[in-house]
């Protein structure tokens, strides 16, 4: 077991107020952390902090190895085909699965030459997941991975997460609807709490 992500007393502020209670989060390989909490508590913010998109106001964050982030926005170019979108991703980092294989894995087999803008919301989501497969990245940060997916799509997410954990990867995901249906031994839950509001005076 090796450490993929280390944080200590991580804090982020918005409009001068801390977003969530300062938290410690260590991600081990082969484990998944499920972030839950009410709307607006900062699950997305935390994932963006862990990804490095935002800089923490206080506390420290250490990455060991590459990181992949799948957020609310699909990060897909509508004018490029599915295959071209994945090809870009593949060139950015150490290559993983072959593109046709990755598309088949997320249920988009045969749609490789379809332009991104012609995909439905759920299909875009699936293509977003395929981005995870064409690159070799130990740490996955997933923001609401089950959103806009049908039942089959949700099971694909579960399978992908399960396999990734088996391969020694780590996952942090934020979710409302459902928890990943993988070996419960591998899951850790973190519930975010609102930080106490500080008096501005």
């Amino acid at each position, binding site marked *: 077991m090796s450490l993929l992500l280390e944080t200590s007393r991580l804090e982020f502020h918005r409009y001068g107020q801390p977003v969530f209670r300062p938290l410690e989060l260590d991600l081990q390989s082969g484990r998944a952390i499920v972030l839950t909490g009410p709307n607006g508590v900062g699950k997305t913010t935390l994932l963006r902090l862990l990804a490095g998109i*935002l800089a923490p106001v206080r506390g420290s964050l250490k990455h060991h190895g590459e990181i992949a982030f799948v957020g609310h926005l699909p*990060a897909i170019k509508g004018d490029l085909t599915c295959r071209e979108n994945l090809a870009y991703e593949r060139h950015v980092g150490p290559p993983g699965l072959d593109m046709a294989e990755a598309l088949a894995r997320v249920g988009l087999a045969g749609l490789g030459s379809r332009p991104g803008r012609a995909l439905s919301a759920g299909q875009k989501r699936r293509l977003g997941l395929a981005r995870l497969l064409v690159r070799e990245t130990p740490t996955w940060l997933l923001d609401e991975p089950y959103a806009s997916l049908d039942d089959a799509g949700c099971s694909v997410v579960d399978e992908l997460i399960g396999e990734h954990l088996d391969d020694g990867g780590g996952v942090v995901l934020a979710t409302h609807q459902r928890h990943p249906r993988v070996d419960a031994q591998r899951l850790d839950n973190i519930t975010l709490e609102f930080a106490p509001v500080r008096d501005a005076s």
Partner: protein
Amino acid sequence: MIESRTHAAAALFRRDMKLAFRRLGESLLPLFFLFTVIVLIPLGVGPGPNLLSRMAPGMVWVAALLASLLALEHLFRPDLEDGTLEQWFVGERAVYARVMARLLSHWLVTGLPVIVFSPLAAEMLNLPRHALGTLIVSLVIGTPALSLLGGLAASLTLSTRGASVLLSILIFPLIVPLVIFATGAVSMAADSLDPGAHLGLLAAFTILSLTLAPIGIAAALRMNLE
């Protein structure tokens, strides 16, 4: 580490070029713009050759400037909206390299066509032939600065409402020296004087923006993601 940064930047550059070719009409807009300006000016101010050749350096440069400005709105905004911009900042952070790649593709779409067609424009505006070389040199040295400074203005106004208005106001003072040195050089050459001093200042200005603008752009982009 350095290798992965170059990979990330090269991948972005290839994708940008692919996208530019896929939307060829949009990519050629700056060039059409240049032609409209160059063709309409003589019709508007009358065909007096002396008048036109006095105005030629300024006109070509203003056309180059407007062509560059025209594409700025789309420099980072589509990436912000579809989420590819936030991916620049995930993990390995080759942000600086990617900013340079993006600016290079902006320059290839807006700056290079102006340089390639500047001899034609110079001929249409009756610029003295011996000043053509200086015009081209001034464009080669100066148009990268247009992309750099334009990129800075575009990144600063990325998530503001009414960005295009603010963008034009922001970029205006930045490019005044550029236009003065560049057109100064070409006018000197047209009068058979040595344009070296002006070109030197122009180059210094471009080098200054090359050093500072990408750092500013990377910081401004990140600010827009918060």
